[in-house]
Every structure is written in structure tokens, then in C-alpha cells.
């Protein structure tokens, strides 16, 4: 569990596995219901062109969320694709 960080700290192209959602109950529920639950793989794709929200791929669908929400999502980084066998 060396690579523990939040989703907001990933860099473009980095993949990670969701470990825990640490947020107020209401926000946590919103995040979980959209499909970001413990154990799913996320791929950080990019920050919005003008800054602000980030775009991630969660189990094959594309989602945008703000940094505030991303900070509530604790992940374990797998590093960049290719090195850890992430299949595109």
C-alpha cells in the first residue's frame, strides 16, 4: 500500500484502484452511486482544458468530476499504463 493517494493527485495516464471514499455521507453516496466503489479501476485521463474538473475512465465509462470530489476518493496507484499491464 505504498502508493496511496487521492484521485486528484494522479497524473494523466496514471491508473489506480479505488481503496476508500472519505467524504461526508451525502457526497460519498453520490460518488458511490455513479459507480466509483471500492476495488474499481480508474484511469486519470486529463484535466479540463481551462483547468478545473478532471476526466477519468471508470470501468469503461467516462466521467468528469471536480478536484474537491476527487480528493474524497482514496486510491492505490498502479503507475502508468504499459508498465503494470493495464489494458487499454
Amino acid at each position, binding site marked *: 500500500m505504498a502508493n496511496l493517494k487521492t484521485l486528484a493527485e494522479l497524473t494523466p495516464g496514471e491508473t489506480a484502484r479505488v481503496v476508500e471514499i472519505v467524504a461526508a455521507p451525502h457526497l460519498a*453516496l453520490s460518488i*458511490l*452511486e455513479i*459507480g466509483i466503489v471500492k476495488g474499481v479501476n480508474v484511469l486519470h*485521463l486529463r484535466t*479540463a482544458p*481551462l483547468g478545473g*474538473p478532471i476526466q477519468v475512465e471508470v470501468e469503461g465509462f467516462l*466521467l468528469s468530476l471536480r478536484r474537491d470530489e476527487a480528493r474524497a476518493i482514496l486510491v492505490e496507484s498502479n503507475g502508468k499504463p504499459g508498465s503494470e499491464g493495464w489494458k*487499454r
Partner: protein
Amino acid sequence: MTRNSVRLQAQNSGLVRPVRRIALAGNPNSGKTTLFNALTGLHQKVANYPGVTVEHQTGLWSGTDCDYHITDLPGSYSLLPRSPDEAIASDWLSGCGKEPRPDAVICVADVTNLARHLYLVGQIIDLGIPTVLALTMGDEAERIGLSMDTARLSAHLSVPVVGVIAPQGRGLGELELAVRGVLAEPWETPPRGYLLPPAFENRLKEYAPKAGASDRQALFCVCGQHTGACTDSLEKVASQVRSELGIDEETARRFVVEARFNWHREICRDVEKRTGTARSGWTRRLDDLLLNRYLGPVFLTAALAIMFQAIFKWAEWPMGAIETVTGEWLPGLAGRVLAPGPLLSLVNDGIFAGVGSVVVFLPQILLLFLFLSILEDTGYLARAAFILDRIMSRVGLSGRSFIPLLSSFACAIPGIMAARTIPHRRDRLATILVAPLMTCSARLVIYTLLIAAFVPDQKLWGPFGLQGASLLGLYLVGIVGAALVAAIFRHTILRGPTPPLLMELPPYRRPRLRSTVLTLLQRAKTFLVSAGTIIFAASIVLWGLSSYPRWSHIEENYEARRAAVLGLMAPADQEVEMAKLDQEFAAERLQHSFAGYIGRAMEPLIAPLGFDWKIGIGILGSFAAREVFVSTMGVVYGVGSTDDGAALVDKLRADRDPATGRPIWTPLVALSLLIFYAFALQCISTVAVIKRETNSWRWPAFAFAYTGLLAYGAAFLTRQIGLWLS
């Protein structure tokens, strides 16, 4: 003849076909609306932006021996609603709304994204309502090498599963068989497939029987979901379970959500077979381009620039054609049929001039809706919201407000209705309040007229000209105004924390020609109906007000001078002199008409803005709807009369103040008027929609008052700055 009337006839003749009520539920972008269209043939918008189905639609699906009354519920991710939009679906399915529960539900899920779509499906199955799962996007799955074992999926979920490809009509027969199947027998709620942590499970098993309920009903109550099954004793049991576990309702829900997703991911691992490489390869490659750090904003700006340029330039030819018909052909025809007199004047100067000068803008409005609909259907609109979220959040709104506000460029009414998809109340109210500041197509009508009249047609760069730039500038005035007002509201009357943004970016899809065309036809109809009723009536009233009373001394004076010109002047000078005389006469008559008196009475109020009484009449008339201003000007300036084919633009430019001889319509007056209309909420329909959406008269009254003050203040400032500069 519609299907409904066929059915009524059948009932009258004694051949009654049973009608069953079916709800269509699914996530946004699941292909639910496409399936609805394929089943019922009653068309509704298909769009890619999450949550575009704002109000539910119904239609009739004729089965082999029974009819299905289908309700298309708004797309929703969950039955734990976060927005008023999602609440509609949840109320409907649990029978908490006004309507009784449907007989069965068709759950629509995107097969390429099954794990997540199953979440809502599972929640619906848990309600104990007969359910059929329809898997869409099978063609897309084939392309990316995904195959699905539907029989196994059906076994896991204990509900029938049918693959459908709605646009081609594939699988609809099987779907009907499955629906008939679940309706034929008493429905047995499938067992709960997901497992909660052992401590939770044990307590449910232990306590639920004490209240005479199933463990599923007990679970609903522990999570605080009141589906009508919660009895007092069950409520007591639920709070005992919560206190023993040391959790609250929301934490209990968290357990359930996680358990569901884990179960669904297991199912997917079992039933999905992937031979292809990329799931969203081509969407991702396009995103790399369209959401590129440098290219993304360029694309967005270019898309909007092309849209506005097109609205101004592409529409010129059809607009010219409409102008010819309503300005020359029809009045000419009327002139041949009717004898000169009040009736001809009513038809030509009132009806053709008034309605014609509004109908002429139909091409522009259709182009605007065409662009919006393409942006929506392709999935780019959600990307635009993603790019603009940072800017929107600066003023206290979110990227989600972008869609309602962009729709408000077409018309504030769909925009305000689309604001239902905004989960957060303050965000939603702020969006509703500033939506009328966005430049709607009715304002476009006024802008186009005044820009064509007072902005020289110069080239700026490439195909882009000064007139197009002015139009873009006015749109920017609306946007900046809306941003400032939103920021002020979010810091004063609607203060609160910025809500989260969790927005799906749907895969890029080709827009469907059929649905785009149907949308445009719908728009054209709505616009023409409003032109044909409100504006038609307003035109007649305005014609009456501006033509009567007729003063005999003015007419006699005119006749005498006319005779003098005809008798004494050389034939070469006669024409010029007559034209001058005609205009003086028209102006004098208008000045002494009812409209003239009303306009003069309000002149002191609008004089600080540089407006004369004719503009006053226009502003007054446009309280019904903004576009009436142009038709009013058409009537007031007598455009459309057979003797003078000159366009309204030329009339405005030529109008002089009889006392000073200076032009009334200086560029500064035009600018002040443009600024006034940029802010004023002069649209009864918008006021009515705000009332409906906020469920009180407080907000529409507030919106009307603040925009009115803003419009007056801004127009006043514009004039003062303009006078000071010149």
C-alpha cells in the same frame, strides 16, 4: 388518425383490447428514448446529454393481443433521487406519485456499460415490480468485440433479458413476448442477490420476521427508503438494527450501494466475453483532440463562432424569399382582391406587415435549433460543460448549468425546464433566474433588424464581418450579464457551498437525422403557431391603435396639399414631393392615433434612454413577447403596404424628428435599445414557466423586476457614456 382514436373506436364498437401500463426506466444515455420511439412511433427528442428527458412522455405500443400504455421516465442513475428530475422516476416506480404503480417496468441498460447500468436495474427489481431487462447498443458491442450471455444474465437476475437494437427494430417482438410473460403470472420478487457484511445480514434475518416483513423490506426501512411498506413495527426494528450496528441511514445506504456494485461486477465477469481491444477507443481518441489543453478551447470557440455566423449568413437567402412573399406577393394579391380602404389597410399594413416581419426569422431559429440539437446528440454538449465548468464555478454555477443556459439561447423556456437536471436547489434557482438574460431567438429577431439597419456591412477577417461580430458582442453582453448576476445571487440571496459535479461524458455518437428533423419540425410548428396567434392578434390590435381615430382635418389638409402638388408642380418633381408628403401624412396620423397618445404618455419615462414615442409603442407591445417589437415597428412604419415596398430597415434609417429634422434612429439610440432588450425579461411565457418550475410567484416576480431595472439602468448608462464620448 392516431392510435388513440383507433383504440377509442375499438372500445365503442365493443372490441375492447386490454391496456396495460408499462414504465420505461433507465440511465441517461441508455438508449431508452430511442427504444420508446421505436415502440410507440410517438417521437420525442433523443439526446446524448445526461437527463435531457425532462418531463415524462407517454405513448401507445400495440401488442399482438393487448395494448401497452408506455411512460418514458426521465433518465436516472438511481432511485435515491438527487434532482427533481430523478425524483419523478423514483416516485413513479414506487407508486408514491399521483399515479398508481405501473403493471410492469422495462429497464433499459447499455450492454457496453452493463456493470453500472445494472445498479438502477437492481434497485427497480428490489421494488418487487414485474421487470424485463432490455439490453441496448448491441451493435456497438459487436463493433468493440463484446459478447453477452443473456440467458446467464437472466438467470443471475431472475428477470427476463432481451437484446434490442431499437433503431433497426430488432428484438422488439421478443421484448413483447417477455413483457407478456411477466404480466401473465403473479410476480415473484427475485431473491436478493447481493450480500451485506455478515453482522448486517444476521441482524436483518433476526429482526425482519419479528415485524412480519421480508429482510428486503426491513432493509428498505433501515436505509430510510419509505416505499409504503414501512409499518410502525418495522420502523422500530429498523432503528434497532441501526443502533446495534452503530450506523445511520446514509451509512446503511453506503453498504447497500457497495454490495450491489460488487455483485453486479461479479455477474459481469461471468456473462461478458471480450475479444476486442478498446471499449471507448474512438471516443477517447476524439477526446484527445477535442479536450486537448490548447485545441479544446479553440474547437469550442470555433464551434460557437460557426454557429453564430451561420445564423446570420446562411439564413439570408430563405429570409429574402419569405420577405418577398409576405412583403410583395401577398400584399399585391390582396390589393387585387380587395378594394382600397380600411380592410385592405388592415390586411396589408396590419396582418402581413406584422406577422410577416416575424415569420421572416424562422430560418434563423431553425438553424439555431439545428446546431443545438447536433451538439446535444453527438455528445459534445457535455464536453462543453466539462470545459466551461471552471469558468461557471467562478460565478457560483456548475458545468451542469451550461446546458440550460445554452438552451436558453434558443428559448429561455426549454432552458428553464432543463434546469431540473441540476441537483442542487440554489444552483438551480440561480440558473433559472439568469437564464432569461441569455440571448434567446426572440431577441435575435430584434438584434438582426437593428444591426442590419445601423451596423455597416464591412468585412473583418475572412468570412467574418462586422455585423456578425456585433451580434456575437450582444451575445457576450448577455453572457457577461448573466455571469455577474449569478455571482451576485450566489453570494447574497442564494448563498451556499458549491455542490459537487459528477457528470457522465457520454460516448460520441452520430446524430440521428430522423430525430433532428422531427425536433426542427416541432420547433417550426411552435414558432409558427405563436406567430399565428399571439403576434397575429397583437398585430391587429396595434394596427387599430395606430390607425384610429382618423382626424378629418389631417386628411383634408393632406388632400389639399396633394392636389396642390399634382396640379402645380412639374411632373418630374411630383414623385419626390409626393413621397415626402406621404411620409409626413403617415407620421402625423400616427402621432394623433391611440398608439401615439400612449407612446407620448410614456415618453418622459423613456426619454432619458433616448427613445421616442414610436419606440415606446414597440416596447409596450413587446411585453407580450419580444419579437412583437419588430412586428410593431413593421406596423408603425407601414412596411408591407402596396404603394411602398421599401424594407423596414430603410424606413428606420429615413425617419426624422419632424421638429428638428435630425434622424430619430441614431446608432446610439439603436445601441441603447439593443442593450435594453439584452436584459429585459419581456416574455409572458418565460414568466409563466418560472412560476411553474419554482412553484411560487415570488421568483418570477423577482426575475421580472430585477431584469427590468437592469435593462433600464444599462440602457441609460449606454446613452450617457455614448453622449459623453461624442
